[in-house]
Each structure stands twice: as C-alpha cells, then as structure tokens.
C-alpha cells in the first residue's frame, strides 16, 4: 500500500518535472522569437498589431526549430520530424503566445516603451513567466495523454529530458510516457 502510494507520488513528481522541462524547452524557442519580434517592432516604432504579428510568427518559427533540430540529429527525415513537431508543440506554443502577448498588451505602455525603457524588459519578463505558468498544465495534460512532448521523445528527440526520473541513461525509442506510466518508466 505504502509502496503504491510512494510509486504514485514518484510518478507524479516525474510527470511534473517532465512537464516543466517540456514547457521550458517550448518557452525557450518561443522567447527567442518573441523577444526578437518585440525588439524589432519596438525599435522600428511599429504599432502593437504588426509587432505582435511578427513576434508570434517568429515565436512559432523558433519554437518549431528548437524541437526539430534534435529530431533531425536523431536521424529522422525533415518532413517526418516536422510533422511530429507540429503535432507536439502547436498547442503549447499557441497557449504561450496567447498569454504572452495578452500580458504585454495589458500592461500600460509596455508595447510603446522603447528598448531603453525598463518597462519594456520588466513586462517581457512578466509576460514570459505568465506564459510558462499557463503552458505548464497544458504540457502536463498532453504528456499524460501520450501527446505533446511525449511524441517528440518517442521519436528520439529527448535530449533535454535526460535528467528526469529514471530516464538518465534510458534513451530507448518508443517508451514515451502515457497516462498509466507518466514517466515513461520501463517496468521489468
């Protein structure tokens, strides 16, 4: 009984760690595009709408790019890698972009603040932190369903999850986490 409880608790924390890692991975790609887009739009004095449009486009581009590269390195074909990444990352990136840009637009003066205005940088930090908090439960849910980054990991692009749970030296393909085995453990 205690063993089951401990195992469930361990799986839960492994799942949370994987979800956090997947969210951070997603957020890194998003943030590169988002920061680049906002900086470009702000520096060129663009209005909020085109600045946000550029940021979202770049965020999706870099988000997908960051997930595609490990799959290509793992030997997957370009289009096969792209289809896995589209299925795995689209919802997570979309939630991040929605929250990130909503927070930026909601902070008074954040979109109009120049690059030498601390309001711009503080708003961006706050927006990215809010995006992480919003996307974490989404990635957690997707992992429990064997979707999201579970697909990327199953395809072999799991280099960024190596530290989670018992997967340190466990890079076998096809052991993506599922609802019954959220950490992707191999039970023998």
């Amino acid at each position: 009984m205690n063993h089951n409880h401990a195992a469930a608790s361990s799986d839960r924390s492994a799942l949370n760690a994987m979800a956090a890692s997947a969210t951070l991975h997603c957020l890194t790609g998003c943030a590169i595009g988002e920061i680049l887009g906002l900086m470009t739009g702000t520096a060129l004095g663009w209005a909020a709408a085109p600045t946000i449009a550029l940021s979202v486009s770049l965020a999706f581009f870099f988000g997908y790019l960051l997930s595609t590269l490990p799959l290509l390195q793992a030997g997957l074909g370009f289009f096969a890698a792209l289809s896995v990444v589209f299925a795995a990352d689209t919802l997570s990136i979309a939630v991040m972009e929605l929250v990130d840009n909503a927070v930026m637009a909601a902070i008074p003066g954040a979109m109009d603040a120049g690059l030498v205005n601390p309001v711009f940088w503080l708003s961006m930090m706050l927006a990215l932190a809010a995006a992480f908090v919003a996307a974490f439960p989404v990635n957690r849910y997707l992992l429990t369903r064997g979707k999201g980054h579970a697909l990327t990991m199953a395809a072999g692009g799991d280099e960024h999850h190596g530290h989670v749970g018992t997967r340190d030296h466990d890079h076998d393909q096809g052991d993506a986490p599922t609802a019954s085995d959220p950490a992707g453990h191999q039970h023998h």
Partner: protein
Amino acid sequence: MNTNTLAAALVGFLLGGLTVSIAAQLDDDTGDSPHGSPAPHALIQTLR
C-alpha cells in the same frame, strides 16, 4: 545546444537589457545640465 544553456542565455539577455535600460534612464535623470536649465532629454521631449 542544450535547452538549459539557451534558457540561461535568454534570462541573462533579459537581465542585461533591463540593466542597460535602467542605467540609461538613470543617466537621463541625472543629466549634467546646469541648475535651472532643462535636462537634455526634457528639451528634446519639449521640441517634439
């Protein structure tokens, strides 16, 4: 490149941007204009 390294670089970039922007604003606030005359940035803003 490792994701954690990239994330750390991003955090560093954001903190760097914040630091530079605060320094620029402090520099503006303590501009070396003589007493009684408007600071350079105030003059530029007035002209706009």
